[in-house]
């Protein structure tokens, strides 16, 4: 009887706090706040927009025109740097510790957005990207 009560309580807690469950959610929360302060009309991240961003061809770099050029067309597959080093898959389902270290996430958005897009990514783009790769 006691166990049943505890389980029931846990279920209630689990259902009411889905947005504050761990470092990845914290990171997304941070991007969401930044997005909202930049644009009051921000309503939330979108996996479909993230998917487009991941696969689109850009013109800033001939060697690295797309995220997919190094990270492989399917985020579930390992990618490969231009120097030949294997990169773990980008999808959270394939690489569970993805997007859990804020400094690392910022470091790589900083470098790779600049290389591939020729500019910084917006908070919305970063959030969409992580949302997409968490959804696979």
């Amino acid at each position: 009887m006691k166990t049943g009560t505890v389980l029931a309580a846990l279920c209630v807690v689990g259902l009411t706090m889905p947005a504050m469950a761990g470092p990845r959610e914290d990171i997304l929360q941070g991007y969401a706040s930044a997005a909202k302060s930049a644009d009051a009309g921000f309503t939330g991240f979108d996996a479909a927009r993230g998917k487009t961003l991941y696969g689109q061809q850009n013109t800033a770099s001939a060697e690295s025109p797309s995220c997919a050029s190094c990270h492989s067309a399917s985020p579930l597959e390992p990618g490969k740097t231009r120097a030949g080093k294997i990169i773990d898959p980008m999808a959270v389902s394939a690489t569970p510790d993805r997007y859990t270290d804020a400094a690392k996430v910022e470091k790589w958005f900083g470098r790779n957005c600049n290389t591939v897009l020729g500019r910084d990514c917006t908070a919305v783009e970063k959030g969409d990207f992580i949302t997409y790769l968490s959804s696979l």
Partner: protein
Amino acid sequence: MNVAIAPSPQVKVWDLPLRLFHWCLVAACGTALVSGFLLNANWLSLHIWAGGFILALLGARMVWGLTGPTYARFRNFTLAPSTAIAHVKDILNGTVHREGGHNPLGAWMVTFFFIALTLVCLSGLGLLGGMFKQGPLKAYLSFATGGLLREPHELLAWLVLMLVAAHIGGVVFESIRSRENLARAMVTGKKVKGFIPAAHDFAARPTLALAIIAVAGAAIGWAAISANALPAWGVRQVTANSAWQEECGDCHMAFHPTLLPATSWQGIMTSLDDHFGEDASLPASTAAAISDYLRANSAETSDSLAANVFRKMSETRPLEITQTPFWLRRHEHIPEATFKAAPVNSRQNCAACHGDATAGTFAPQSISIPKETVK
């Protein structure tokens, strides 16, 4: 001349150890010459073993020349110039004297062989130690000193090749002239009776010979193994730096700091925002720590093979190891497809083929191009 072929009475001239020495030397010299002149650097181990075996054979033959039976003894090698001149005169006027051992020109031949082979092996050992930082001389010779021995080693090898040709020519010539197959005599050990016997008779002393070879062999072997265990001349152990390992190793193997001169490292570390087309920027403090590490252990601080050969940079692309004249020369025979295919994936992935790349060693023996894998 055309009477029945009665088996001619034969007498033993060349003893078994001597014949074994001769044919082992043929095999070892053949291996060393083929691996040195014709095969690529992957065969260096075989070449080194052949050279070591030649040295051991020469050493054993030296002992046998002082302890062996009559025709093995150096005492019976007639090296007096007057004898050699008399022998040449005999050849010119068609006089045939069959010798039990080496004829006077043959004795000179063997002596030249001894000297040339000793020098070619020692020069090889020297360049192996200095340039490749391997073997018993690696602790004593710099890359530059080893490099000085490179041409002499090759010239001596050519000399050996010429001596081989002269030796075979001489054997064929003398076999025809004296109507006795001298090559077969080196197999069976026997010559037809009626030759000029050696000046001095000796009984073999095999136990003494074995004792000397065992003691000297053990002493030389111990000295060589001990010397081989010493640290190589001018090559310090470089301890890995965690920032270097992690940050550089994120996208490619962390290239050993001794592979580039300090100016190239500086060029790389000050242009990380455009690192061969990629933004690889680092926080200033991390970049500074890695720069310090690379500069403190740059190519100038090491006398290793790799540090020496990659020190000469491309004039137009001075930041790239894969653009150095040495790198290009050594990889020109490797097809583009091999670099592109997994598991190599790129020219920057040294460790895919060089088993000791992360340590910055790059010994020729550690090269093994992996088979293409299908992903």
